[in-house]
């Protein structure tokens, strides 16, 4: 009898402990203030280019600082985690934020520690602008950017009777989107094969050249459906894509496969895309990259480091974020993952300018992408509803690509969807 009761008590205690664990999560690492020891957590996703050696180096430079690197698998996971914990506790001391969901983050800029004013000059102007809230607080330490060039298959260009040399291709494609699609027509006529990968991918390039595509920068109201620039680009793209697109959905298995089997001849190439192509088309030797982009320059993607204001070590975290986005470190993640620096100083570094890529036929990618970065003139305004409107637009284009609807009907359905967004 006695043993039984003991068991009950013991069991009760166990349940209580389990309950504590369930409800309280693991307690955050407390810092020993007296000894000056600090533990900093850095939350990232995908291949951020941050290597463990970088953190080890910082730990060596700053005795008493210990860094823990938390890696989420995908940007979606990181986004979900970020918004679930922002405003409460549990975020890392430094959080990696992708440009795509930065507009949503800006809505809560007051919950993030601002970047010290004296650092603002380090980055490209538009990189700073994107992460600056109406009160003038910059809340993100810019990491990489995604300046756009054109990747192409030299063998397919040759087969179509087009010039295949990278300088000649740059000359051939120089001009606006109409010129790009004109070359596309020539290619399709000669080979009967698709010229580019997907209309949705090309749309990324076109929409990122419109200053205020979907929302009014002043009021934040949605203007997308009445914006002539958007409609014109949409019509131009979908007219061309009927014959020129491979109609592949980006990031689908078919899309990856087509990189290797010649499913299309060109695609828009932000710096980080080089690794994607190389990884999926290892046996192809004819991929190349041309120093050109329709309408000049464009940017697709790029991330920031942010410091949640609720963290236990805001000041130490700011120091680390500062260091991680300094020119020397930006060059390291350019080497690690092909992420192009957003820092003015890093961009003129010989390490960057002399970099070549053996897979892309030894293309001088450092020089090409810094030229492309300099050519970026427009940083589109993205408000808090940008993500939703852009997602709906992506679906609208996909509906035309897969033959579900024609361009006009798909536009109408998009308008209906956008009107229901609140």
């Amino acid at each position, binding site marked *: *009898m006695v043993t*039984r*009761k003991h068991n*009950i008590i013991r*069991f*009760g205690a166990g*349940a209580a402990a*389990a*309950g504590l664990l*369930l*409800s309280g999560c693991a307690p955050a690492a407390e810092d020993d203030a007296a000894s000056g020891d600090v533990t900093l957590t850095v939350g990232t996703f995908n291949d951020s280019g941050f290597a463990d050696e970088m953190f080890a180096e910082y730990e060596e430079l700053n005795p008493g600082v210990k860094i823990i690197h938390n890696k989420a698998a995908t940007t*979606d996971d990181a986004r*979900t985690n970020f*918004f*679930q914990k*922002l*405003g*409460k506790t549990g975020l890392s001391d430094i959080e990696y934020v992708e440009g795509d969901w930065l507009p*949503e983050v800006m809505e*809560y800029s007051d*919950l993030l520690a601002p970047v010290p004013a004296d650092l603002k000059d380090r980055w490209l102007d538009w990189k700073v602008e994107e992460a600056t809230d109406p009160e003038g607080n910059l809340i993100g330490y810019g990491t990489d950017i995604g300046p756009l060039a054109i990747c192409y298959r030299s063998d397919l260009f040759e087969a179509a009777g087009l010039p295949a040399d990278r300088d000649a291709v740059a000359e051939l494609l120089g001009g606006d989107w109409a010129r790009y699609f004109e070359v596309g027509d020539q290619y399709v006529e000669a080979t009967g094969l698709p010229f580019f990968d997907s209309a949705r991918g090309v749309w990324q390039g076109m929409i990122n050249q419109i200053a205020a595509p979907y929302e009014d920068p002043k009021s934040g109201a949605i203007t997308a459906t009445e914006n002539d620039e958007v409609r014109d680009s949409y019509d131009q793209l979908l007219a061309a894509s009927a014959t020129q697109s491979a109609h*592949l*959905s*980006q*990031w*689908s*298995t*078919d899309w990856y*496969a*087509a990189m290797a*089997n010649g*499913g299309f001849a060109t695609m828009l190439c932000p710096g980080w895309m080089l690794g994607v192509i190389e990884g999926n088309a290892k046996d192809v030797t004819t991929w190349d990259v041309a120093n050109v982009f329709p309408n000049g320059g464009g940017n697709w993607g790029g991330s920031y480091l942010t410091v949640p204001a609720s963290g236990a070590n805001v000041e130490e975290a700011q120091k680390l974020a500062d260091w991680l986005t300094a020119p020397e470190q930006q060059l390291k993640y350019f080497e690690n993952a092909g992420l192009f620096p957003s820092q003015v100083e890093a961009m003129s570094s010989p390490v960057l300018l002399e970099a070549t890529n053996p897979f892309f036929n030894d293309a001088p990618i450092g020089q090409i992408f810094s030229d492309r970065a300099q050519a970026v003139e427009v940083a589109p305004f993205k408000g808090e509803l940008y*993500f*939703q409107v852009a*997602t709906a637009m*992506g*679906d*609208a*284009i*996909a*509906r035309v690509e*897969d*033959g*579900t*609807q024609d361009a006009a009907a798909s536009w109408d359905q998009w308008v209906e969807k956008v009107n*229901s*967004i609140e």
Partner: protein
Amino acid sequence: MPSHRSIAPQQNGRSALREKLTRWDVKTAPYLYIAPFFLIFIATGLFPIGYTAVISLMEWDMVRGTGEFVGFDQYWRVLSAPEFWIALRNTVSIFLLSTIPQLVAAIIIAAALDRNIRARTFWRMSVLVPYVMAPVAVALIFSNMFGDKFGLVNSLLTQLGMTSIPWHTDPFASHVAIATMVNFRWTGYNTLILLAAMQAIPREYYEAATVDGAGAIRQFLSITIPGLRGTLIFVVVTSTIGGLQVFDEPRMYDHTGTGGPDNQWLTIALYLYNVGWGEWDFGRAAAMAWILFALILLVGLINLIVTRGLVRDDSAAVAEDAGRRARRARRATHDNAQPVEEASR
């Protein structure tokens, strides 16, 4: 336990205390034993349900943890969105395409495994393997198979001289593909449950039927199926809950995970996720969760009634009758035992 009690009254004061504790123990211990489940259920089950109900009546900002009361606005918004009705259509379609073939296959496989075959345990364990696989892994493999241009299924079809199927464009084709993944994973699970139930059917029934000259099919229809009645109801109800909540498979079906550009395979659970974690509109997502709950309740009820009505014949009545008799017999022995215990006090 009875031995303790019969000794206790003959002992002194200390034992009286022990007696009291014992009685207290007997009375309260069961509740203590089951308490952990209910405490955890209240914390992790009941509380979120109530919280969801509150949030569904508000325009909720999850990050700041504040909201504005808007009454039933969110419910009307959900019900007036065309996507909701498309999602409902897709959910029901996928549900039917997966549940019906799945249960039919599970019964047939279970019946086959119920026979005297060699290496029985091996075969029985094998049917459970797909269930053990992570749903995400299953979805990844099947998504590759159902690729539109370079997928395995379409490659085979074109090699056989047929036209390839637009798996990611045509709503019905996408439902078939997704239902295939669901069936692959859950058929084995249901098979094992049905097999267990089949083994509980007294072998004498089959022997008697054989003597009477009934064939295998007749035995299956007249003994096995009616004997499975209770289990079938359980399996149908759990399949309904699972089927209406289908999420992993459609989410993993393409790389964007939003249910297709024209909502071809958007299910209600996926729509709920998109609204909650895509648009951060938790008020509307919560309202949708309650609508889904009501829907599951409704469909579950219909299924229960239909299953009960379909699987009912004489031998079920016989089995039920036998059950009633057994229960009566048990009660009788229990009643007999009671006075003995009383007498010993």
